Protein backbone atom coordinates (compact mmCIF):
# COMPACT_ATOMS: atom_id res chain seq x y z
CA UNK A 1 0.00 0.00 0.00
CA UNK A 2 1.48 3.36 -0.99
CA UNK A 3 1.38 6.00 1.69
CA UNK A 4 -0.41 9.30 1.21
CA UNK A 5 1.66 12.44 1.69
CA UNK A 6 -1.06 13.56 4.05
CA UNK A 7 -4.45 12.51 5.32
CA UNK A 8 -6.72 15.37 6.34
CA UNK A 9 -9.30 14.38 8.94
CA UNK A 10 -12.36 16.60 8.67
CA UNK A 11 -13.64 18.65 5.72
CA UNK A 12 -14.82 21.80 7.44
CA UNK A 13 -13.04 25.11 6.78
CA UNK A 14 -9.69 23.89 8.19
CA UNK A 15 -9.76 20.60 6.27
CA UNK A 16 -10.87 22.38 3.10
CA UNK A 17 -8.07 24.96 3.41
CA UNK A 18 -5.45 22.30 4.16
CA UNK A 19 -6.61 19.75 1.59
CA UNK A 20 -6.82 22.35 -1.19
CA UNK A 21 -3.35 23.82 -0.65
CA UNK A 22 -1.74 20.39 -0.28
CA UNK A 23 -3.29 19.00 -3.45
CA UNK A 24 -2.74 22.18 -5.50
CA UNK A 25 0.96 21.88 -4.71
CA UNK A 26 1.17 18.32 -5.90
CA UNK A 27 0.91 16.41 -2.63
CA UNK A 28 -1.02 13.13 -2.61
CA UNK A 29 -3.73 13.90 -0.11
CA UNK A 30 -6.81 12.13 1.18
CA UNK A 31 -9.54 14.18 2.87
CA UNK A 32 -12.01 12.24 5.06
CA UNK A 33 -15.32 13.39 6.53
CA UNK A 34 -18.46 11.75 7.93
CA UNK A 35 -20.76 14.13 6.07
CA UNK A 36 -21.90 13.57 2.46
CA UNK A 37 -19.91 16.61 1.27
CA UNK A 38 -17.45 19.33 2.33
CA UNK A 39 -18.39 22.17 4.69
CA UNK A 40 -18.22 20.83 8.24
CA UNK A 41 -20.79 22.21 10.67
CA UNK A 42 -20.33 25.87 9.80
CA UNK A 43 -20.83 25.36 6.05
CA UNK A 44 -23.13 22.35 6.47
CA UNK A 45 -24.89 21.53 3.19
CA UNK A 46 -23.08 24.33 1.33
CA UNK A 47 -23.03 22.48 -2.01
CA UNK A 48 -26.72 21.62 -2.00
CA UNK A 49 -28.30 24.64 -0.30
CA UNK A 50 -31.07 26.33 -2.31
CA UNK A 51 -30.52 30.07 -2.91
CA UNK A 52 -33.49 31.10 -0.76
CA UNK A 53 -32.06 29.36 2.29
CA UNK A 54 -28.50 30.57 1.61
CA UNK A 55 -29.75 34.16 1.66
CA UNK A 56 -31.28 33.59 5.06
CA UNK A 57 -28.07 32.10 6.42
CA UNK A 58 -26.01 35.10 5.39
CA UNK A 59 -22.73 35.99 3.63
CA UNK A 60 -20.44 34.20 6.11
CA UNK A 61 -22.19 30.96 5.27
CA UNK A 62 -22.12 31.61 1.53
CA UNK A 63 -18.36 32.21 1.64
CA UNK A 64 -18.01 28.45 2.00
CA UNK A 65 -19.28 27.81 -1.51
CA UNK A 66 -16.11 28.97 -3.28
CA UNK A 67 -13.88 27.15 -0.78
CA UNK A 68 -15.77 23.86 -1.22
CA UNK A 69 -15.48 24.25 -5.00
CA UNK A 70 -11.75 24.94 -4.64
CA UNK A 71 -11.31 21.69 -2.73
CA UNK A 72 -13.25 19.76 -5.39
CA UNK A 73 -11.02 21.25 -8.11
CA UNK A 74 -7.76 20.75 -6.20
CA UNK A 75 -7.24 17.11 -7.08
CA UNK A 76 -7.40 15.97 -3.46
CA UNK A 77 -8.93 12.51 -3.00
CA UNK A 78 -12.17 12.92 -1.06
CA UNK A 79 -13.78 10.24 1.10
CA UNK A 80 -17.17 11.33 2.39
CA UNK A 81 -19.62 9.41 4.58
CA UNK A 82 -16.46 7.91 6.04
CA UNK A 83 -15.51 7.89 9.74
CA UNK A 84 -12.05 7.75 11.20
CA UNK A 85 -12.30 5.41 14.16
CA UNK A 86 -8.59 5.20 14.89
CA UNK A 87 -5.58 7.35 14.06
CA UNK A 88 -2.07 6.46 15.16
CA UNK A 89 0.98 8.68 15.68
CA UNK A 90 2.81 6.88 12.86
CA UNK A 91 0.20 8.03 10.35
CA UNK A 92 -1.94 4.91 10.21
CA UNK A 93 -5.60 5.83 9.88
CA UNK A 94 -8.47 3.37 10.22
CA UNK A 95 -11.58 4.25 8.24
CA UNK A 96 -15.13 2.98 8.23
CA UNK A 97 -17.70 3.49 5.48
CA UNK A 98 -20.67 1.48 4.27
CA UNK A 99 -18.27 -1.04 2.67
CA UNK A 100 -16.70 -1.85 6.03
CA UNK A 101 -13.40 -0.86 7.57
CA UNK A 102 -10.00 -0.27 6.00
CA UNK A 103 -6.60 1.12 6.79
CA UNK A 104 -4.69 3.95 5.11
CA UNK A 105 -1.16 5.17 5.69
CA UNK A 106 0.10 8.76 5.58
CA UNK A 107 3.38 10.55 6.14
CA UNK A 108 1.57 13.44 7.78
CA UNK A 109 -1.78 13.87 9.47
CA UNK A 110 -3.76 17.08 9.51
CA UNK A 111 -6.39 16.87 12.24
CA UNK A 112 -9.27 19.22 11.49
CA UNK A 113 -12.04 17.77 13.61
CA UNK A 114 -13.50 21.16 14.48
CA UNK A 115 -15.56 22.08 17.49
CA UNK A 116 -18.39 20.67 19.51
CA UNK A 117 -20.85 22.46 21.74
CA UNK A 118 -19.89 22.82 25.36
CA UNK A 119 -21.95 20.29 27.29
CA UNK A 120 -24.79 22.01 29.19
CA UNK A 121 -25.83 19.74 32.05
CA UNK A 122 -29.03 21.28 33.40
CA UNK A 123 -32.07 19.75 35.08
CA UNK A 124 -34.18 18.30 32.26
CA UNK A 125 -31.58 18.50 29.49
CA UNK A 126 -32.16 14.85 28.55
CA UNK A 127 -35.88 15.25 27.79
CA UNK A 128 -36.97 14.61 24.19
CA UNK A 129 -37.61 17.97 22.53
CA UNK A 130 -34.55 19.54 24.16
CA UNK A 131 -31.63 19.83 21.73
CA UNK A 132 -28.47 21.85 21.34
CA UNK A 133 -28.86 25.11 19.44
CA UNK A 134 -25.98 24.01 17.22
CA UNK A 135 -28.09 20.98 16.35
CA UNK A 136 -31.11 23.16 15.56
CA UNK A 137 -28.92 25.27 13.29
CA UNK A 138 -27.69 22.17 11.47
CA UNK A 139 -31.34 21.29 10.77
CA UNK A 140 -31.86 24.79 9.42
CA UNK A 141 -28.74 24.74 7.21
CA UNK A 142 -29.06 21.21 5.94
CA UNK A 143 -32.81 20.79 5.74
CA UNK A 144 -34.36 24.25 5.99
CA UNK A 145 -36.12 23.09 9.14
CA UNK A 146 -37.35 25.25 12.03
CA UNK A 147 -39.01 23.68 15.08
CA UNK A 148 -42.79 24.06 15.09
CA UNK A 149 -44.51 25.84 17.94
CA UNK A 150 -43.21 27.71 20.96
CA UNK A 151 -39.39 27.68 20.95
CA UNK A 152 -37.36 28.68 24.02
CA UNK A 153 -33.64 29.24 23.49
CA UNK A 154 -31.48 29.18 26.61
CA UNK A 155 -27.82 30.13 26.70
CA UNK A 156 -25.27 32.59 25.47
CA UNK A 157 -22.47 33.05 22.93
CA UNK A 158 -22.31 34.12 19.28
CA UNK A 159 -24.17 31.07 17.96
CA UNK A 160 -27.02 31.64 20.43
CA UNK A 161 -27.73 35.12 19.05
CA UNK A 162 -26.99 34.13 15.46
CA UNK A 163 -29.48 31.29 15.49
CA UNK A 164 -32.12 33.51 17.12
CA UNK A 165 -31.60 36.08 14.36
CA UNK A 166 -31.82 33.38 11.69
CA UNK A 167 -35.12 32.21 13.22
CA UNK A 168 -36.40 35.78 12.99
CA UNK A 169 -35.25 36.14 9.39
CA UNK A 170 -37.10 32.92 8.58
CA UNK A 171 -40.26 34.45 10.02
CA UNK A 172 -40.40 32.59 13.33
CA UNK A 173 -42.07 34.73 16.00
CA UNK A 174 -43.04 32.26 18.76
CA UNK A 175 -39.58 32.56 20.22
CA UNK A 176 -38.30 33.38 23.74
CA UNK A 177 -34.66 33.97 24.65
CA UNK A 178 -33.21 33.29 28.10
CA UNK A 179 -29.75 34.86 28.12
CA UNK A 180 -27.52 33.13 30.66
CA UNK A 181 -24.45 35.40 30.27
CA UNK A 182 -23.19 36.33 33.73
CA UNK A 183 -24.14 39.73 35.13
CA UNK A 184 -20.58 40.94 35.48
CA UNK A 185 -19.38 39.55 32.14
CA UNK A 186 -19.38 42.91 30.40
CA UNK A 187 -17.20 44.42 33.11
CA UNK A 188 -14.85 41.43 33.14
CA UNK A 189 -14.50 41.69 29.37
CA UNK A 190 -13.54 45.39 29.29
CA UNK A 191 -9.75 44.83 29.52
CA UNK A 192 -9.95 42.83 26.29
CA UNK A 193 -11.72 45.64 24.43
CA UNK A 194 -8.66 47.60 23.15
CA UNK A 195 -7.18 44.50 21.50
CA UNK A 196 -10.57 43.68 19.99
CA UNK A 197 -10.56 47.03 18.21
CA UNK A 198 -7.43 46.12 16.25
CA UNK A 199 -7.10 43.92 13.17
CA UNK A 200 -10.38 42.42 11.98
CA UNK A 201 -11.86 42.69 15.48
CA UNK A 202 -14.18 45.63 14.71
CA UNK A 203 -15.81 43.67 11.87
CA UNK A 204 -16.61 40.81 14.29
CA UNK A 205 -17.91 43.24 16.92
CA UNK A 206 -20.02 45.15 14.39
CA UNK A 207 -21.57 41.89 13.22
CA UNK A 208 -22.38 40.96 16.81
CA UNK A 209 -23.87 44.34 17.66
CA UNK A 210 -25.96 44.28 14.51
CA UNK A 211 -27.33 40.89 15.54
CA UNK A 212 -28.19 42.10 19.04
CA UNK A 213 -29.81 45.23 17.62
CA UNK A 214 -31.94 43.18 15.22
CA UNK A 215 -33.13 40.93 18.05
CA UNK A 216 -33.92 43.91 20.27
CA UNK A 217 -35.75 45.79 17.53
CA UNK A 218 -37.86 42.76 16.72
CA UNK A 219 -39.09 42.85 20.31
CA UNK A 220 -38.62 39.16 20.99
CA UNK A 221 -39.42 38.02 24.52
CA UNK A 222 -36.14 38.20 26.38
CA UNK A 223 -35.05 37.39 29.96
CA UNK A 224 -31.51 38.02 31.18
CA UNK A 225 -29.72 36.13 33.95
CA UNK A 226 -32.31 33.45 34.74
CA UNK A 227 -31.55 31.59 37.97
CA UNK A 228 -32.36 27.99 39.00
CA UNK A 229 -33.24 27.02 35.46
CA UNK A 230 -34.97 23.70 34.98
CA UNK A 231 -36.83 22.00 32.17
CA UNK A 232 -39.75 19.75 33.02
CA UNK A 233 -42.36 17.92 31.05
CA UNK A 234 -46.11 17.86 31.63
CA UNK A 235 -49.12 16.81 29.61
CA UNK A 236 -48.91 19.96 27.40
CA UNK A 237 -45.25 19.59 26.51
CA UNK A 238 -42.10 21.10 27.96
CA UNK A 239 -42.06 23.68 30.69
CA UNK A 240 -39.08 25.93 31.43
CA UNK A 241 -38.99 27.18 35.03
CA UNK A 242 -36.61 29.81 36.36
CA UNK A 243 -36.28 32.55 38.95
CA UNK A 244 -35.46 36.14 38.13
CA UNK A 245 -35.26 39.02 40.62
CA UNK A 246 -36.99 36.82 43.17
CA UNK A 247 -39.98 36.10 40.92
CA UNK A 248 -40.72 32.61 39.63
CA UNK A 249 -41.37 32.22 35.92
CA UNK A 250 -42.74 29.30 33.96
CA UNK A 251 -42.79 29.16 30.17
CA UNK A 252 -44.51 26.62 27.99
CA UNK A 253 -42.37 25.28 25.14
CA UNK A 254 -42.83 22.68 22.47
CA UNK A 255 -39.10 22.81 21.88
CA UNK A 256 -36.08 23.99 23.90
CA UNK A 257 -32.59 24.78 22.55
CA UNK A 258 -29.52 24.98 24.81
CA UNK A 259 -26.12 26.50 23.99
CA UNK A 260 -23.16 27.72 26.05
CA UNK A 261 -20.46 28.20 23.45
CA UNK A 262 -18.25 25.76 21.62
CA UNK A 263 -15.05 23.93 22.57
CA UNK A 264 -12.49 22.01 20.50
CA UNK A 265 -13.40 18.40 19.63
CA UNK A 266 -10.29 16.79 21.06
CA UNK A 267 -11.14 13.10 21.09
CA UNK A 268 -8.87 12.23 18.21
CA UNK A 269 -5.82 14.17 19.38
CA UNK A 270 -6.27 12.80 22.90
CA UNK A 271 -6.48 9.23 21.63
CA UNK A 272 -3.18 9.75 19.81
CA UNK A 273 -1.51 11.01 22.96
CA UNK A 274 -1.05 14.66 21.94
CA UNK A 275 -0.14 16.89 24.87
CA UNK A 276 -3.14 18.95 26.06
CA UNK A 277 -3.20 22.28 27.92
CA UNK A 278 -6.08 23.89 29.79
CA UNK A 279 -6.95 27.24 28.26
CA UNK A 280 -8.35 29.62 30.87
CA UNK A 281 -9.60 32.02 28.20
CA UNK A 282 -11.40 29.37 26.19
CA UNK A 283 -12.39 27.40 29.33
CA UNK A 284 -11.46 24.24 27.47
CA UNK A 285 -8.57 21.87 26.79
CA UNK A 286 -6.46 22.65 23.71
CA UNK A 287 -3.83 20.46 22.05
CA UNK A 288 -0.38 22.04 22.39
CA UNK A 289 0.85 23.34 19.00
CA UNK A 290 4.03 25.01 17.81
CA UNK A 291 4.01 27.97 15.43
CA UNK A 292 3.90 25.56 12.49
CA UNK A 293 0.66 24.11 13.97
CA UNK A 294 2.36 20.81 14.70
CA UNK A 295 1.10 19.02 17.82
CA UNK A 296 3.41 17.49 20.43
CA UNK A 297 3.61 14.49 18.07
CA UNK A 298 5.85 14.91 15.04
CA UNK A 299 4.11 15.02 11.67
CA UNK A 300 0.69 15.37 13.35
CA UNK A 301 -0.73 18.84 12.70
CA UNK A 302 -3.89 20.39 14.15
CA UNK A 303 -5.77 23.20 12.40
CA UNK A 304 -8.99 25.11 13.02
CA UNK A 305 -11.36 24.95 15.98
CA UNK A 306 -9.92 21.55 16.96
CA UNK A 307 -6.86 23.47 18.19
CA UNK A 308 -8.76 26.32 19.87
CA UNK A 309 -11.91 28.21 18.89
CA UNK A 310 -11.27 30.85 16.21
CA UNK A 311 -14.18 30.54 13.81
CA UNK A 312 -14.41 29.65 10.13
CA UNK A 313 -11.98 32.19 8.64
CA UNK A 314 -9.25 31.41 11.17
CA UNK A 315 -9.82 27.69 10.56
CA UNK A 316 -9.48 28.09 6.80
CA UNK A 317 -6.23 30.05 7.25
CA UNK A 318 -4.84 27.57 9.77
CA UNK A 319 -5.62 24.72 7.39
CA UNK A 320 -3.58 26.50 4.71
CA UNK A 321 -0.75 27.24 7.17
CA UNK A 322 -0.57 23.62 8.31
CA UNK A 323 -0.52 22.58 4.65
CA UNK A 324 2.45 24.88 4.04
CA UNK A 325 4.28 23.30 7.00
CA UNK A 326 3.60 19.83 5.59
CA UNK A 327 4.68 20.86 2.06
CA UNK A 328 7.93 22.15 3.51
CA UNK A 329 8.55 18.80 5.21
CA UNK A 330 7.83 17.09 1.91
CA UNK A 331 10.70 19.08 0.46
CA UNK A 332 8.58 21.44 -1.60
CA UNK A 333 9.49 25.11 -1.69
CA UNK A 334 7.11 27.34 0.23
CA UNK A 335 6.74 31.05 -0.45
CA UNK A 336 7.77 32.72 2.84
CA UNK A 337 5.77 35.84 1.97
CA UNK A 338 2.58 33.81 1.49
CA UNK A 339 3.13 32.18 4.86
CA UNK A 340 3.78 35.52 6.56
CA UNK A 341 0.69 37.22 5.13
CA UNK A 342 -1.49 34.21 5.99
CA UNK A 343 -0.16 34.29 9.56
CA UNK A 344 -0.79 38.02 9.82
CA UNK A 345 -4.37 37.71 8.51
CA UNK A 346 -5.00 34.90 10.99
CA UNK A 347 -3.82 37.08 13.89
CA UNK A 348 -6.01 39.95 12.67
CA UNK A 349 -9.04 37.65 12.71
CA UNK A 350 -8.28 36.51 16.25
CA UNK A 351 -8.09 39.98 17.82
CA UNK A 352 -11.67 40.01 19.12
CA UNK A 353 -11.50 36.46 20.44
CA UNK A 354 -10.34 37.28 24.02
CA UNK A 355 -13.23 39.74 24.33
CA UNK A 356 -15.76 37.16 23.11
CA UNK A 357 -14.28 34.51 25.43
CA UNK A 358 -14.64 36.88 28.41
CA UNK A 359 -18.17 37.97 27.45
CA UNK A 360 -19.50 34.45 27.07
CA UNK A 361 -17.60 32.54 29.76
CA UNK A 362 -19.63 29.62 31.04
CA UNK A 363 -21.04 30.32 34.47
CA UNK A 364 -19.66 28.38 37.41
CA UNK A 365 -23.11 26.85 38.00
CA UNK A 366 -22.81 25.14 34.64
CA UNK A 367 -19.43 23.61 35.47
CA UNK A 368 -20.72 22.40 38.82
CA UNK A 369 -24.36 21.38 38.37
CA UNK A 370 -26.69 20.26 41.18
CA UNK A 371 -26.52 16.66 42.41
CA UNK A 372 -29.77 15.67 40.68
CA UNK A 373 -28.48 16.61 37.20
CA UNK A 374 -27.49 13.82 34.82
CA UNK A 375 -23.85 14.32 33.79
CA UNK A 376 -23.36 11.23 31.64
CA UNK A 377 -26.35 10.98 29.31
CA UNK A 378 -25.40 7.55 27.94
CA UNK A 379 -25.02 5.70 31.22
CA UNK A 380 -27.35 8.03 33.17
CA UNK A 381 -24.93 8.93 35.93
CA UNK A 382 -25.82 11.99 38.02
CA UNK A 383 -23.48 14.68 39.31
CA UNK A 384 -24.37 13.56 42.85
CA UNK A 385 -23.21 10.00 42.18
CA UNK A 386 -19.98 11.34 40.69
CA UNK A 387 -19.38 13.63 43.68
CA UNK A 388 -19.94 10.72 46.08
CA UNK A 389 -17.46 8.54 44.16
CA UNK A 390 -14.91 11.36 44.10
CA UNK A 391 -15.27 11.89 47.85
CA UNK A 392 -15.17 8.23 48.80
CA UNK A 393 -12.04 7.32 46.92
CA UNK A 394 -10.33 10.66 46.23
CA UNK A 395 -10.31 9.32 42.71
CA UNK A 396 -9.94 11.04 39.34
CA UNK A 397 -12.11 10.92 36.21
CA UNK A 398 -10.79 7.54 35.12
CA UNK A 399 -11.52 5.85 38.45
CA UNK A 400 -15.03 7.35 38.43
CA UNK A 401 -15.46 5.93 34.94
CA UNK A 402 -14.52 2.46 36.20
CA UNK A 403 -16.84 2.71 39.24
CA UNK A 404 -19.90 4.27 37.61
CA UNK A 405 -19.53 3.62 33.84
CA UNK A 406 -19.62 7.40 33.42
CA UNK A 407 -18.09 8.05 29.99
CA UNK A 408 -18.32 4.43 28.87
CA UNK A 409 -21.41 4.77 26.71
CA UNK A 410 -21.56 5.16 22.94
CA UNK A 411 -20.61 8.88 22.95
CA UNK A 412 -17.42 7.78 24.72
CA UNK A 413 -17.33 10.61 27.20
CA UNK A 414 -17.63 13.42 24.67
CA UNK A 415 -20.69 14.74 26.50
CA UNK A 416 -19.65 14.16 30.13
CA UNK A 417 -15.85 14.45 30.00
CA UNK A 418 -15.69 18.16 30.81
CA UNK A 419 -18.25 17.85 33.63
CA UNK A 420 -16.31 14.97 35.12
CA UNK A 421 -13.07 16.96 35.11
CA UNK A 422 -14.67 20.10 36.56
CA UNK A 423 -16.41 18.09 39.32
CA UNK A 424 -13.11 16.39 40.15
CA UNK A 425 -11.30 19.75 40.19
CA UNK A 426 -13.95 21.34 42.43
CA UNK A 427 -14.23 18.47 44.91
CA UNK A 428 -10.48 18.15 45.40
CA UNK A 429 -9.49 21.77 44.90
CA UNK A 430 -7.33 21.03 41.84
CA UNK A 431 -6.76 22.87 38.59
CA UNK A 432 -8.47 21.37 35.53
CA UNK A 433 -5.09 20.11 34.32
CA UNK A 434 -4.35 18.45 37.65
CA UNK A 435 -7.81 16.90 37.79
CA UNK A 436 -7.10 15.19 34.48
CA UNK A 437 -9.39 13.88 31.79
CA UNK A 438 -10.90 10.59 30.71
CA UNK A 439 -8.38 8.47 28.81
CA UNK A 440 -9.62 8.29 25.23
CA UNK A 441 -9.02 5.08 23.32
CA UNK A 442 -10.06 3.88 19.90
CA UNK A 443 -12.44 2.96 18.42
CA UNK A 444 -13.45 6.64 18.30
CA UNK A 445 -16.65 5.59 16.56
CA UNK A 446 -18.40 2.30 17.29
CA UNK A 447 -17.36 -0.51 14.95
CA UNK A 448 -18.75 -4.02 15.05
CA UNK A 449 -16.65 -7.07 15.92
CA UNK A 450 -17.81 -8.51 12.61
CA UNK A 451 -16.23 -5.61 10.71
CA UNK A 452 -12.93 -6.13 12.51
CA UNK A 453 -13.12 -9.89 11.91
CA UNK A 454 -13.59 -9.23 8.19
CA UNK A 455 -10.06 -7.77 8.11
CA UNK A 456 -8.48 -11.11 8.92
Amino acid at each position, binding site marked *: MTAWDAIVIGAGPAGIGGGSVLAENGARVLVVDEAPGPGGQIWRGIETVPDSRALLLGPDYLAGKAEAARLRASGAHLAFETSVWRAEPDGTVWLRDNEGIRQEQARHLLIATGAMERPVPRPGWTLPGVTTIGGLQI*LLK*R*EGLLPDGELVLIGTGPLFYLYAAQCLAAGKRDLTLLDTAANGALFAALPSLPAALTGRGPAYLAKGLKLLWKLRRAGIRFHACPQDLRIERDADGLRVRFRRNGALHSLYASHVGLHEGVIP*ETHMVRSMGCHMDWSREGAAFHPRRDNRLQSSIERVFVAGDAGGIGGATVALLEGRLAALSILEELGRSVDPLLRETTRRTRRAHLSARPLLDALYRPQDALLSPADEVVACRCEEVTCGEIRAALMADSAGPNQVKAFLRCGM*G*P*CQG*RTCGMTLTSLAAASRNLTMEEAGYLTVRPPLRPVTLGEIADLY
Partner: protein
Amino acid sequence: MFEGRAIPFRPGQSLAGALMAAGVVHFRRTPVSGSERGPWCLMGICYECLLRVDGSDNQRACMTAARPGMKTERQDGARLDAAGEQA
Protein backbone atom coordinates in the same frame (compact mmCIF):
# COMPACT_ATOMS: atom_id res chain seq x y z
CA MET B 1 -42.03 4.74 7.64
CA PHE B 2 -41.71 5.22 11.41
CA GLU B 3 -43.51 2.76 13.68
CA GLY B 4 -45.81 1.94 10.79
CA ARG B 5 -46.62 5.59 10.04
CA ALA B 6 -45.63 7.12 6.69
CA ILE B 7 -43.24 10.07 7.13
CA PRO B 8 -42.75 12.54 4.29
CA PHE B 9 -39.24 13.83 3.55
CA ARG B 10 -37.34 15.87 1.01
CA PRO B 11 -34.19 14.68 -0.78
CA GLY B 12 -31.12 15.38 1.34
CA GLN B 13 -33.04 15.23 4.58
CA SER B 14 -31.76 13.14 7.49
CA LEU B 15 -33.96 10.63 9.30
CA ALA B 16 -33.78 12.83 12.40
CA GLY B 17 -34.86 15.93 10.46
CA ALA B 18 -37.73 14.16 8.71
CA LEU B 19 -39.03 12.71 11.98
CA MET B 20 -38.72 15.98 13.89
CA ALA B 21 -40.54 17.81 11.10
CA ALA B 22 -43.32 15.24 11.51
CA GLY B 23 -43.49 16.01 15.23
CA VAL B 24 -41.59 12.97 16.50
CA VAL B 25 -39.11 13.73 19.31
CA HIS B 26 -39.14 10.46 21.24
CA PHE B 27 -36.72 8.20 19.32
CA ARG B 28 -35.77 5.54 21.85
CA ARG B 29 -35.69 4.38 25.46
CA THR B 30 -32.37 4.13 27.27
CA PRO B 31 -30.96 0.70 28.18
CA VAL B 32 -30.24 1.86 31.74
CA SER B 33 -33.51 3.33 33.10
CA GLY B 34 -35.85 3.16 30.14
CA SER B 35 -36.20 6.95 29.97
CA GLU B 36 -37.30 8.55 26.71
CA ARG B 37 -34.72 10.23 24.51
CA GLY B 38 -34.59 12.08 21.22
CA PRO B 39 -32.01 13.91 19.12
CA TRP B 40 -29.62 16.10 21.10
CA CYS B 41 -26.49 17.19 19.14
CA LEU B 42 -27.66 16.39 15.59
CA MET B 43 -24.03 16.16 14.48
CA GLY B 44 -23.21 12.54 15.20
CA ILE B 45 -21.48 12.98 18.55
CA CYS B 46 -24.03 12.09 21.22
CA TYR B 47 -25.71 8.87 20.00
CA GLU B 48 -29.04 9.94 21.50
CA CYS B 49 -31.05 9.57 18.27
CA LEU B 50 -30.40 5.84 17.76
CA LEU B 51 -33.11 4.05 15.79
CA ARG B 52 -33.71 0.61 14.35
CA VAL B 53 -33.44 1.14 10.61
CA ASP B 54 -34.57 -1.70 8.34
CA GLY B 55 -34.04 -4.13 11.17
CA SER B 56 -30.58 -2.90 12.07
CA ASP B 57 -30.16 -1.31 15.53
CA ASN B 58 -27.96 1.55 16.73
CA GLN B 59 -28.31 3.73 13.61
CA ARG B 60 -27.71 7.46 14.19
CA ALA B 61 -30.81 9.13 12.76
CA CYS B 62 -29.02 12.49 12.43
CA MET B 63 -26.28 11.02 10.23
CA THR B 64 -28.47 8.75 8.11
CA ALA B 65 -30.05 10.10 4.93
CA ALA B 66 -33.78 9.39 4.57
CA ARG B 67 -34.58 7.16 1.60
CA PRO B 68 -37.89 5.95 0.18
CA GLY B 69 -39.13 2.67 1.62
CA MET B 70 -36.95 2.86 4.73
CA LYS B 71 -38.53 1.20 7.77
CA THR B 72 -37.60 2.84 11.06
CA GLU B 73 -38.61 1.98 14.60
CA ARG B 74 -37.96 3.26 18.11
CA GLN B 75 -35.07 1.47 19.73
CA ASP B 76 -36.08 0.47 23.21
CA GLY B 77 -33.09 -0.51 25.32
CA ALA B 78 -29.83 -1.95 24.04
CA ARG B 79 -29.46 -3.18 20.48
CA LEU B 80 -30.59 -6.66 19.54
CA ASP B 81 -27.91 -9.14 18.50
CA ALA B 82 -28.13 -11.53 15.55
CA ALA B 83 -30.23 -13.97 17.58
CA GLY B 84 -32.70 -11.22 18.46
CA GLU B 85 -31.55 -11.04 22.08
CA GLN B 86 -30.91 -7.75 23.82
CA ALA B 87 -27.12 -7.29 23.75
